[in-house]
């Protein structure tokens, strides 16, 4: 594309982001401040993830972008087109073909490989922000590894509701040191972060923070011995492909209470359908 540098950002900005990324990888889970730039889309639309992707992307990379697991939603389509235009990279919807995957709020169901990088869009990088509004205080708490406040919050959940009531953005402890926000992925996805073969990078544009988890790193969801972490999912198989082990979205189908549960990961679901798996709603459709 004429008038822009490769992947939109200028080289000086890329170097600044790259320096932050290297420190982030060296200190797994620690939030590194960076000079977040104004991007041609508003904060909240994935500007942090886009800047990280722009800094790592090369001409030979193959990019996949998902939004809540889907390749075909507005955010995913616009970001994919953005990089196809500004970097000319090949894009894909197939998880196994991608070398860089930018994601908003999901981790693909297909297990990621060693030579892949997953970039998360992060709205709020500070896991303690609901408990302690001051950045100065939370920075000190991270320095001292003082996470008692979060344990109290989880304990109060159990005392009040009988269980930990966090269903997304469930806090994790990285490399036994830093409390980290996994971004608003469902708690269902948390176990996938543990010992993941791929490199995980996180970008928060508005909050101007970058953090990372190297491959093969311990990522533990906070819990208690007598209340172990449990990943919650709708107790249904996918209506289209019949999968029982993937994260499901509930889709309202009419105004008479009709609904169906389908895989949130569209690539995973369509690959399964191509392979011949059919769910209850798929059979019904075929019968009609």
């Amino acid at each position, binding site marked *: 594309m004429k008038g822009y*540098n*490769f992947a939109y950002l200028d*080289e*000086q900005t*890329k*170097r*600044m982001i*790259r*320096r*932050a*990324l*290297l*420190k*982030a*990888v*060296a*200190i*797994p889970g*620690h939030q*590194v*401040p960076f000079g977040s730039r104004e991007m041609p889309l508003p904060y909240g639309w994935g500007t942090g993830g886009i800047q990280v992707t722009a*800094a*790592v*992307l*090369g*001409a030979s990379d193959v990019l996949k972008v998902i939004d809540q697991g889907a390749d075909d939603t507005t955010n995913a389509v616009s970001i994919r087109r953005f990089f196809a235009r500004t970097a000319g990279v090949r894009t894909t919807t197939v998880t196994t073909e991608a070398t860089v995957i930018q994601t908003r709020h999901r981790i693909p169901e297909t297990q990621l490989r060693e030579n892949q990088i997953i970039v998360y869009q992060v709205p709020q990088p500070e896991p303690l922000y609901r408990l302690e509004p001051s950045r100065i205080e939370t*920075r*000190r708490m*991270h*320095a*001292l590894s003082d996470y008692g406040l979060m344990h109290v919050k989880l304990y109060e959940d159990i005392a009040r509701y009988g269980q930990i009531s966090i269903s997304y953005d469930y806090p994790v402890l990285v*490399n036994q*040191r*830093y409390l980290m926000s996994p971004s608003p992925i469902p708690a269902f996805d948390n176990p996938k972060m543990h*010992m993941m*073969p791929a*490199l995980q990078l996180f970008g928060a544009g508005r909050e101007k923070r970058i953090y990372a*988890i*190297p*491959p*093969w*790193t*311990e990522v533990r969801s906070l819990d208690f011995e007598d209340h172990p972490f449990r990943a919650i999912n709708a107790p249904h198989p996918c209506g289209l492909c019949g999968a029982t082990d993937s994260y499901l979205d509930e889709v309202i189908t009419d105004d008479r209470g009709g609904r169906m549960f389908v895989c949130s990961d569209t690539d995973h679901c369509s690959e399964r359908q191509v392979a011949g798996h059919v769910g209850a709603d798929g059979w019904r459709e075929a019968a009609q």
Partner: protein
Amino acid sequence: MNTPLSAGFADPVTDSQHCFRAVLEAMSRPGTALRAGAAHPPPGLSRAAAAVLLSLVDHETQLWLDPAGEAAWDWIAFHCGAPRTADLAGAPFAMALRLPNLSGLNPGTHEMPETSTTVIAEVASLSAGHRYRLSGPGLRVPKVIAVDGLPDDFVESWRRNHALYPCGVDLILCAGDMLTALPRSVAIEEA
């Protein structure tokens, strides 16, 4: 009197991205030796070290340059534009021809461990030499690497650096056109 400077990267955008990805990969999987890309180095520096400087250092980052590498300064000043500092203990980046004593470098603070020094150090070889066993984040199982050219007391001085975690310095080792990285998070023993 002045000899002409060698070129930096032939294609700065592509070459610096390539070099950065090698450093990122090496930092993510400590000890992995990778090709750094094609830079024309100044006198005294390896191709890999030159590529790393071109990819990571600029007018925003102070650089300490090993006095033994003085001949490279004009090239660095021209291509990177980095301000030079004589204060090794305060420099965000240090370019060393021989790895300096790690305890004299900036390990960062507990609130801002990312402000620590990144040392780019020349070594003789990343494929033969003294053997070290690495373990920690990025490594599924411990990894044995061979490096020629680190100080004799390296394991002991790294042990002290690693004990400062999450503070501590990070190393990028360069030999010829190969590089590898040792982040502070990795534990190193004799192998």
